[in-house]
């Protein structure tokens, strides 16, 4: 308790963490270099681009591992005994509420992805919210209804697309004669100043992350909820 009172104040510019040389560099240089007001996003998606890219790959690997461990392929036409247990007609009240809520949640998820520059948020968080909207659909109706949008065959494709977008930005930089994930060179393609190019590329990268996280979120939920049969869920 007494140690807590010795902590520096929240947002104190003179606290040890803020007065260190490296942090000073980030705090003063981030906006002129990238035109992104939110430093966290800039550090995450630009200065430490490699790190975030392989975080996305880690999530992808986790998704593959979940599918490999949990997914069970029962016989095609035999009725699985547990399947009868899961059968349940959708509840009218829950279904109507979720039906009216889902488009707005999806819009909110896209807002979180798109405004990672200005407010807290970005690919990971937006992806989780977008995945949550599909989970809500699966809870309100049944797993089939949600799988109409995210079928099993499409999950890995979507997740792969996300990583492909992220790495694609890196290789595009490489092709144009700069370092891997050094977005400033992309101004030749985008037709804006190098500083704005960095900002816009961060958005592209975040979209890639969001794809992966959405797909893997839903995959984890549907595998866990249906005991790996992907038929009738929770």
């Amino acid at each position, binding site marked *: 308790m007494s140690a807590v009172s010795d902590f520096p104040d929240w947002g104190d510019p003179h606290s040890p963490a803020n007065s260190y040389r490296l942090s000073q560099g980030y705090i003063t240089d981030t906006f002129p270099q990238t035109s992104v007001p939110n430093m966290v996003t800039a550090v995450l998606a630009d200065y430490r681009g490699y790190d975030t890219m392989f975080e996305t790959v880690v999530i992808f690997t986790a998704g593959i591992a979940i599918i490999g461990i949990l997914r069970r392929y029962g016989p095609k036409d035999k009725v699985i005994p547990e399947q009868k247990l899961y059968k349940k007609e959708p*509840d009218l*009240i*829950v279904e109507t*509420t979720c039906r*009216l*809520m889902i488009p707005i949640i999806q819009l909110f998820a896209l807002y979180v992805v798109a405004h990672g520059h200005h407010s807290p948020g970005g690919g990971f968080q937006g992806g989780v919210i977008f995945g949550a909207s599909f989970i809500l659909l699966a809870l309100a109706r049944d797993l089939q209804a949600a799988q109409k949008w995210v079928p099993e065959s499409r999950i890995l494709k979507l997740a792969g697309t996300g990583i492909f977008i992220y790495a694609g930005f890196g290789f595009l930089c490489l092709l144009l004669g700069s370092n891997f994930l050094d977005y400033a060179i992309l101004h030749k393609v985008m037709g804006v100043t190098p500083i704005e190019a960095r900002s816009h590329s961060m958005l592209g990268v975040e979209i890639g992350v969001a794809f992966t996280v959405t797909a893997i979120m839903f995959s984890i939920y549907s595998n866990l909820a249906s005991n790996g049969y992907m038929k009738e869920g929770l």
Partner: protein
Amino acid sequence: MINEIICIVMVLSGLLFFVGGAIGIIRFPDFYTRMHAAGKGDTMSVFLILMGMAIYQLNDFSLANLLVAGKIFFITIFIMWAGPTSTHALIKAGIDEGQKVWTRKDEKGDPEA
């Protein structure tokens, strides 16, 4: 100034309803009656507290503050929209789980079966 007074009154009455819900969830006899305290005590108090905040936010009027107040209002709508549904879902789950409905013993004194 008038905004601050409205805000204080609204937040205090919201807190009062929170107290009602909290005491209700301790004192009421069975799951279903507790559900009444949980489901209703929360919606109105959240509405009052958040609207008080939104009104306080409009104290120095600008477009940005108006939009933030709009967002707070949006959360309020979300709560009042989702609250009844989760109440309903949980009480239905209680029925399906086989919770007993508590009934008052008769005045004549024959105990419940």
